[in-house]
């Protein structure tokens, strides 16, 4: 077998099994970094040996066997945990059994996801941990998506992995009543992967949503691992709805296009259809949640491709539901805009006014919404102020340009 063919075979194992292999080793050792290192060594060994010996019939079992030997070498060298040899023996026996039997090795990725999003882990480390441990993405790429230096990201990851090992964070799927809250941490961490860099568009749209595909992959994995969790479907539907509009968010010359003015022909109908399917899968369980509501709001927007109009009243109702489940400034602003768009700008503005000023100071969408509503109310000089404030709060040049244009429109209509 040629080296190129071997690389292809290894890449395919990495793509299909990396997270499963890390999860399997780490769930037994409690040591994510140790599992990743041993697996990395096993991949190197495969690159050396598979060209001559051929790809083994069960590549995962082969890799597990080599990784386990590496972990034994590691513990012998450090002479720390004699007891760990027992667990390595267990892995060896299981690897043997997997090699002989037809069955696939146990999938421990759900436990790994819960470990990555454990409340004892620094929230800023949870998403990077998932991306690295489950998908095998390197720290430098994660760092660039989160706009921090590679050194800082590596340090954050190392610290989190040390804590998992040293503080004894267990690899387990939590049980009720703990489960709901813990699931929400997992969902939030996956969504954070999707939105990383969202507000921070660099020169080109390509760095926008730098990890969107990876986040969606995590979302898909979660629906497979928790097929009875409606919020997992809700989150996946939300991400797919947003992703469907990737091509419509900016004009070809890089100008920002607001959602309600995007050309629906530029939306990906297949992604929208998929999102709708997942939203229906979620609805079966009759257990509403934050991500299902957010996806439902996007679903109403997506409906414009079919009906040519936006049901703002429905959106206002959905935001009201969102406020009850997950109160936040985002849903208040969203509801205010929806009420105004539904034909009641006064009521919309009153809703906006209810938000305490200390929460709005640096929140760009609030100032953009305020500008828009003030313009609907013909309070143009105040609208100019609001749009300018919004423009000063974004780091997306295209959005800034759009907001300044809106600001100038007011001046024109005033004159």
């Amino acid at each position, binding site marked *: 077998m040629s080296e190129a063919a071997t690389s292809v075979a290894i890449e395919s194992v990495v793509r299909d099994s990396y997270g499963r292999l890390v999860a399997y080793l780490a769930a037994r050792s409690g040591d994510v970094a140790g599992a990743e290192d041993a697996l990395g060594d096993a991949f190197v060994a495969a690159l050396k040996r598979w060209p001559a010996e051929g790809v083994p019939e069960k590549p995962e079992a082969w890799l597990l066997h080599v990784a386990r030997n590496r972990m034994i070498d590691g513990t012998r060298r450090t002479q720390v945990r004699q*007891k760990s040899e*027992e*667990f390595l023996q267990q892995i060896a026996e299981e690897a043997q059994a997997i090699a002989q039997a037809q069955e696939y090795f146990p999938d421990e990725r759900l436990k790994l996801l819960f470990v990555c999003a454990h409340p004892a882990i620094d929230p800023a480390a949870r998403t990077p941990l998932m991306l690295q441990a489950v998908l095998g993405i390197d720290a430098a790429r994660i760092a660039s998506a989160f706009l921090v230096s590679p050194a800082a990201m590596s340090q954050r990851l190392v610290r989190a992995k040390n804590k998992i090992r040293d*503080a004894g964070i*267990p690899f*387990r799927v939590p049980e009720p009543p703990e489960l709901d809250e813990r699931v929400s941490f997992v969902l939030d961490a996956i969504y954070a992967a999707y939105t990383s860099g969202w507000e921070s568009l660099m020169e080109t749209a390509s760095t926008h949503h730098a990890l969107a595909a990876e986040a969606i992959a995590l979302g898909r994995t979660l629906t497979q691992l928790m097929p009875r969790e409606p919020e997992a479907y809700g989150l996946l539907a939300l991400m797919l709805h947003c992703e469907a509009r990737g091509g419509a968010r900016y004009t070809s010359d890089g100008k920002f296009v607001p959602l309600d003015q995007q050309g629906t022909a530029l939306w990906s109908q297949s992604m929208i259809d998929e999102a709708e399917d997942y939203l229906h899968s979620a609805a079966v369980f009759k257990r509403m949640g934050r991500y299902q509501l957010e996806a439902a709001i996007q679903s109403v927007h997506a409906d414009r491709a079919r009906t040519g109009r936006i049901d703002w009243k429905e959106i206002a109702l959905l935001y009201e539901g969102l406020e009850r489940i997950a109160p936040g400034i985002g849903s208040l602003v969203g509801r205010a805009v929806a009420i105004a768009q539904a034909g009641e700008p006064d009521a919309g503005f009153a809703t906006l006014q209810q938000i305490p000023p200390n929460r709005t100071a640096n929140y760009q969408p609030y100032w953009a919404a305020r500008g828009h509503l003030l313009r609907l109310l013909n309070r143009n000089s105040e609208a100019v102020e609001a749009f300018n404030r919004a423009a000063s709060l974004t780091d997306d040049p295209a959005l800034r340009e759009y907001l300044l244009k809106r600001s100038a429109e007011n001046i024109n209509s005033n004159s």
Partner: protein
Amino acid sequence: MNNTTTETNTMKYALLVHQSQEHFDRRNDAAAVAAGKAYGEALQAAGIFVGGAGLDSPQNATTVSVRDGKRQVHDGPYAETKEFLAGFGIIDVPNLDAALEWAARHPAAGFASIEVRPLLGSHFMVGTPKPPK
């Protein structure tokens, strides 16, 4: 619990109770004493209690250090803080989740903060494997 590692593996954790002067002053109230006693008994009954005690006031603390071979003794705690260490317990449980569960049951958890820290070198996550099912 749905643990991959077994229940026979244990780790020792310190539960460090940090509280304000205001709550510290109420520690001898009958209710507080009864709650503390019940909690200690629960730890004993669960077979996880290693040790622990409430601490006297930081005003009665004396801090010692040795620099250049010279002993230095200061009146007062290591650091003057609004919330201070008022007690500690050491428990022996399978993992952090179990330790957090016990910390949440601590009678002071409702008003104080319970810091949960593994004892150094106490982790044997990698231990006796579960017999295959």
